Structure formats: structure tokens, C-alpha cells
């Protein structure tokens, strides 16, 4: 294999607030290979979106602060770039799709305008060429009568159609990396499947890698090659999809899976994870999941577990032996 597309080493994103410094991302490290689809899973506030925003350098500084030992994308040190240079990376090299297509498109600008401005900005296309390309892109994402829809405004589209527009914008400059932040969460289930298929096909066509942020485990399991499970600003488990889902090695991953409905366990009650995520402005000396963990062992109360390679390529930061805890019914 060639060098990875993205290397994130010890990423730390924090926010200064009245209550102290909130460590939204607290030492996250991972790599993303070319052509790979990487899942980033965790509940709200676990730092998934903050990781993505940090890579895009979209965290406002101040009050935010982004530091890393290494943040390298395709040979470029992202943290060394000036804001002006970073403008040329966004959308052109790293593109993003956001959660709520109802609110992620500007309501007072036509869809055509929002598409062409990206093309003009990064590909230096003139008006007519940008228009032609915009029509192609809308057709590519499956919007019927694309030509006549260019002048339409976002409110004239349905949620699924708006997300298709967002995808067209994100992929318009053939980025090498696509970050999809809860891209299908706000959509109907049937539309979700269409959008996932669409993204999957398109990124394959342009050869882009994907970071897929979601709290939907089933979706991640179907779509991704590898998955990172995040909790309280850290990666607590990481590995190939099959390994993580068949042999979860962290109490939190196990908890997440126990509260996901399964078609093969009809009649079984879902077990929600009790309690709330920890306050990220407090320093943590033990495993942040300890107060909510159903599998803790004595050692959990004395020291904090490090992220270690428990199986080949399968990392977890957990002292408990969870072998056999997950009911395998295949």
C-alpha cells in the first residue's frame, strides 16, 4: 500500500468557556487509506463532528483551539497551512456533507448558484461552463429535469432531493476525501438507503475516501471498511468492521450494540446505556465510561486503560474481558 491519505496523530480540540476548558477531542489518532470508507461512531457530544471540523480547520479560533502532533492529508500538513491556503483545500480536496439538508443550504440563493459558486471558486469555470457542469452534477445525483431545477430554491426540494444537491456540491470538485457528518440521519429510512447507495457509487467512481460519521451502527456496519468508536473525545475502540461488531472489546461498544434493534432478536428488550456522558471540562483520570459501564473490573477503578492492539488491527482501551458477552446469533 502507498502512504495513507489522512494521518491524524494525537488531535486535541478544546474550547475555552466560562466553565473552564472543554476538551471536545482529546488525543484522537487514526489513519485513513486511499479508497477506504471509515466509520466514526459514537453518541452526541462524543467528538465525532468536532474531529471532522478540526480536520477541515473549521473550528473558530478563539474560542476553539486545534492542536495535533500530526495532521497530514495527502502529504500536506494541514495545521501548517494559512487560512488562505486552507480555502483552496476545502471542497476542492476535502469536502463535507452535513446532517440537516433543510438547514445546510442557503434559503435565499438558488440551487444553481450554490453549485456554480463552488465550481467557479475552485475550478475557475466561467458562467456557461459552470452552468453546464452544474446540470451534469445534478443529473449525476439523480435529480430529474436538472436543467429546469437550477433556478429553484432549496425550499422547493424535498429533504432527500436537498441532500442530493448537497452531495452534488460536495463532489463537484472531485475531492479526495469526503466527510459525511450524519448525512442521512435527518432523512426517511427509504430515502436513507438511496442516499447511502448514491454516495457509495459516486465515491467509487471518483476514487475518494470517506469518513462516515454516524450513530447508526447498522448503517456503518453495511457501508464501512473500518470503524472508530468514539466516547468522550477519544477513540475507545477501532478495527475492521467484522472484528468490532462480532467481537466488541470495549464496554461502550457493547453497550451501543445492545441498544440497537436487531431483526433476529424479536421480542428481546433493548438495553439502553444508563446515565449521561461525562462533563468534558473536568479532568479524567479513569476510563470516562466507567460510571455507565456494566462490565467494569477492579482495575478500572485504579487506572485509565490505554488504547492497545488486542487483536491484529483491532484496538480497544478496556480492561474488561468481554469475550462471549455479545450474543452471537448468525
Amino acid at each position: 500500500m502507498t502512504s495513507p491519505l489522512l494521518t491524524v496523530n494525537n488531535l486535541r480540540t478544546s474550547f475555552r468557556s466560562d466553565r473552564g476548558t472543554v476538551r471536545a477531542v482529546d488525543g484522537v489518532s487514526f489513519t485513513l487509506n486511499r479508497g477506504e470508507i471509515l466509520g466514526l461512531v459514537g453518541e452526541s457530544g462524543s467528538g465525532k463532528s468536532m474531529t471532522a471540523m478540526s480536520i477541515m480547520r473549521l473550528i473558530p479560533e478563539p474560542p476553539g483551539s486545534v492542536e495535533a502532533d500530526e495532521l497530514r492529508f495527502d502529504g500536506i500538513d494541514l495545521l501548517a497551512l494559512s487560512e488562505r491556503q486552507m480555502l483552496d483545500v476545502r471542497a476542492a480536496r476535502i469536502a463535507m456533507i452535513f446532517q440537516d439538508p433543510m438547514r445546510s443550504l442557503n434559503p435565499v440563493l438558488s440551487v444553481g448558484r450554490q453549485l456554480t459558486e463552488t465550481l467557479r471558486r475552485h475550478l475557475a469555470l466561467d458562467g456557461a461552463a459552470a452552468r453546464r457542469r452544474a446540470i451534469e452534477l445534478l443529473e449525476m445525483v439523480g435529480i430529474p429535469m436538472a436543467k429546469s431545477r437550477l433556478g429553484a430554491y432549496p425550499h422547493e426540494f424535498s429533504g432527500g432531493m436537498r441532500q442530493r444537491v448537497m452531495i452534488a456540491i460536495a463532489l463537484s470538485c472531485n475531492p479526495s476525501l469526503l466527510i459525511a457528518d450524519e448525512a442521512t440521519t435527518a432523512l426517511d429510512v427509504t430515502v436513507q438507503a438511496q442516499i447511502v447507495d448514491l454516495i457509495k457509487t459516486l465515491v467509487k467512481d471518483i476514487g475518494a475516501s470517506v469518513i462516515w460519521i454516524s450513530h447508526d451502527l447498522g448503517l456503518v456496519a453495511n457501508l464501512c471498511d473500518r470503524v472508530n468508536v468514539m466516547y468522550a473525545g477519544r477513540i475507545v475502540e477501532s478495527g475492521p468492521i467484522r472484528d468490532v461488531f462480532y467481537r466488541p472489546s470495549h464496554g461502550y461498544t457493547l453497550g451501543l450494540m445492545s441498544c440497537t434493534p436487531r431483526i433476529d432478536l424479536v421480542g428481546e428488550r433493548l438495553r439502553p446505556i444508563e446515565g449521561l456522558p461525562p462533563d468534558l471540562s473536568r479532568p479524567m483520570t479513569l476510563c470516562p465510561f466507567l460510571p455507565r459501564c456494566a462490565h467494569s473490573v477492579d482495575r478500572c477503578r485504579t487506572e485509565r486503560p490505554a488504547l492497545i492492539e488486542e487483536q491484529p488491527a483491532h484496538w480497544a482501551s478496556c480492561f474488561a474481558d468481554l469475550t462471549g458477552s455479545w450474543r452471537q446469533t448468525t
Partner: protein
Amino acid sequence: MWRYVFRRLGQIPIVLVVVTITIFIVVRSTPGDPIQIMLGMQTSPDAVAAIRHEFRFDQPLYRQYLLWLWDVVHGDLGRSVRLNQSVVSLLTERFPVSFRLALAAMVFAVLVSIPLGIISALRRNTWVDYLCTGVTLIGFSIPNFALALVLIFVLSVKLQLLPITGIGATSSSLWASIAPYVLPSLALGMLQVAVLTRLLRSSMIDVLSQDYIRTARAKGLMPSTVLVVHALKNALIPFVTMIAIQFGYLIGIQVTIEYTFAIPGMGTAILNAVVNRDFPVIQGFTLVIASFFLLTNILADILYSVLDPRIRY
């Protein structure tokens, strides 16, 4: 769209009838008789009665109103009791002066509030923002006649930069005809500066936190494009409608400013008319001010739909 405009225009007469009936009753139920005030106490009752008859003041109230309304529909607002002049000719003298003053005040307010509003939103909670807040606080709290006196003292008396009076006088140069408007429009527009700056600041802060601004930034657009095309275009929607509404309001509140700067506008005319119980003038001017206010409100609604594609009537 046009159906909506016509429907709104169609509502105007109804509102105007209600407004004029109210004014009709109010001016006639306050003590003081216009003819007695004009002629004094020594006049013979016969002369008073003759003039009362001429102005139809001897007729029943509802008849007076209906006759007045009939005349209005035919473009006649009656004659002033006090001045030997028709109300229409008085209006054609006075309305342009007030209109120009309101326009000048509004232009001043818009030119100042747009940069202030944007800067204080972008530099939120810094000393720049607090300075802008201070300026708007002054605008809100100082009565405009007091501000007028300060401006006169500093800019005219001490620095001798601008004339205090001169609106309506024939003047040779362009500057000589514009200069007298400067001080009154500053004094009059200061409140609008405050209103519009606060409005733009809060709508700008709201817009900048929206998801579509994050999308625009994620597209690698120039910060100036994000600010002007993506943020300002949204933030100006409430701002522009507010300008239209405030403009209608400005026409009706110039009395103290006109008095301070000896401006022959609608404010002084209506004040004199009230003092002298000059019923036809009060009625005619009220009608015009109310119509103007209603029209600017309709204009605000139309602008709203022009600026925001989500709003269609």
C-alpha cells in the same frame, strides 16, 4: 403576487375611513371653536354663524363627515379655516419638505447602521461591539430635539460648519439647498440608526450561526463572499422591511425637529392646525400621513417577498 398587492391596496380605504372618523370625532369633541379662535370674542354672532355655515360646522356630524368624504373622493380636502389656502395646496407645499427630510434621515441611518451592525456582529462582545452598543444607546435615549440642540451648538454655533435654517428658502447652489437638511436629518435619523443597528446586529449574529454559513465556509469560499453573499443577503431581509416601516413612521414624527430648525414641513403645519382647531387641515394631513404609513407597510411586505424566495403571496 399582484392579487395580493391589489387586495392590500383595497384594504387601505377601510382603514382610512376608520382613521378619519376617529379624527373627525376627536377634533370636534375637544374644547375650542375654530371660528371663535380666528375671529376673536368681539365679533358679532351673525358673522360667526355665517362662517360656520360656510365651513358646514352647523350641520350634523355625520353629514359633515359624509360631505367631507364626498369631497375627498373628488380630490378636494377643503379649505383651511385659518389660512386663506386650500388644504391640497398647503399639502403640496409641505409634504415634499417632510418627505425629503425623512428620506435624508433614513439615508443617514442606513449608511451608518449597515457598517455598525455588521462590525458589532462580527466583533461580538469586544470593545468595538460595546462602542456600537453605546452609540445605539445614545440614539435610543436622547430625545431628538435635545440632540438637535447639541448639534446646533457644536456644528453651527461653535464650528460654523452648517446652517441651522434655510429649508424652503430659494438658494443658488446645490450645496446651499442641501446643507440645511443635514442637521435636522442627523437629529431625526439618530433613533433610526439605533433601531436599525440593533436589528442588523442581532439578525447578523443569528444568520452567522446558521448551518448554511458553515456549508459556505466548508466550500472554501472567500470570507468576503461568505459574509456578503451568504450572510448579509439573509440578514438584510428583516432590515430592509424595517427601513420601509420606519420610513412611514418618520413622516409623522417630525414636529419637534421642524420646530427646532424652523422647517416649513407637515409637522409645523399640523401643530398650528391643532392649536387653532383648523379642522380641515388636521383631517387632510392626518389622511395623508395615514395613507403614507399604510403604503410603506405594503411596500415592506412586497420587499419581503422580493428578498426572500420562501415568501410568496
